[in-house]
């Protein structure tokens, strides 16, 4: 069906579905880039790209997964242009998680977010997709354009790293400001992006 012109009804359906996934795009973007204002800019960019590419959307498939690919590609591109440095958004700093029953110390959302942002981007996105977005490993693999085993491994490593940071309270403060760390992240990004021949490179 790819290149056919869409009818008005199909366009209306597309727009309705696109509208419904906006909160999810914002949540994914916030987790990816850490700052609410930059995340929202990224979502706007992704929405415009999705709209322009709507003829490539297969009706009946997951709009959330499709738009996440577009958002992710926009993020990777911007990351390589050095726009995001995983800066931490202080507006969430005061939020505190409810302590699970039987546990004394609540985990602060701010600690969680900061710890998340210290992860290499490909592990962070894998954990966000599976652990927060509720995607299956298979769906996450499709979104990231890699093998299911790769996603499982990334999620596992991300969980282990977060576990260490949050249980030992050893969250790096400024790791992403560090020039060396930043360069390493950009190199990993190139790797992630090159493994991604899939959809929506728009």
């Amino acid at each position, binding site marked *: 069906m790819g290149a056919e012109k869409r009818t008005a009804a199909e366009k209306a359906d597309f727009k309705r579905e*696109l509208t419904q996934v906006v909160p999810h795009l914002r*949540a994914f973007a916030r*987790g990816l880039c850490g700052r*609410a204002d930059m995340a*929202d800019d990224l979502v706007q960019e992704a929405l415009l790209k999705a709209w322009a590419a709507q003829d490539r959307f297969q009706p009946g498939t997951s709009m959330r997964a499709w738009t996440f690919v577009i958002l992710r590609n926009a993020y990777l591109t911007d990351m390589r242009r050095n726009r995001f440095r995983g800066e931490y958004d202080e*507006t969430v700093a005061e939020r505190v*998680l*409810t302590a699970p029953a039987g546990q004394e110390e609540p985990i602060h959302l701010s600690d969680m977010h900061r710890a998340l942002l210290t992860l290499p981007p490909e592990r962070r996105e894998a*954990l966000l997709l599976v652990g927060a977005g509720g995607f299956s490993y298979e769906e996450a693999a499709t979104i990231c354009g890699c093998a299911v085993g790769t996603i499982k491994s990334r999620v596992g490593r991300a969980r282990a790293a977060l576990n260490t940071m*949050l249980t030992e309270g050893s969250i790096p403060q400024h790791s992403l400001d560090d020039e060396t760390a930043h360069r390493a992240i950009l190199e990993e990004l190139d790797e992630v992006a090159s493994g991604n021949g899939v959809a929506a490179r728009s």
Partner: protein
Amino acid sequence: MTADEKSASGKGGEKRSPGREAGKPDWSNGLRQLYDSVLDEELPDTFKDLLSKLDDKD
């Protein structure tokens, strides 16, 4: 065109506390809460404007 601060202050993460899944560390719910807290925010006007303008873009 950035969302202003008040959109980010939202409702906080206290609303949902999904049941703990067996075998997962305590913070795994926090990840979900982080995500859900953004879902719960009211959509900034910039998005409403953008969505309403999409139809004119063809």
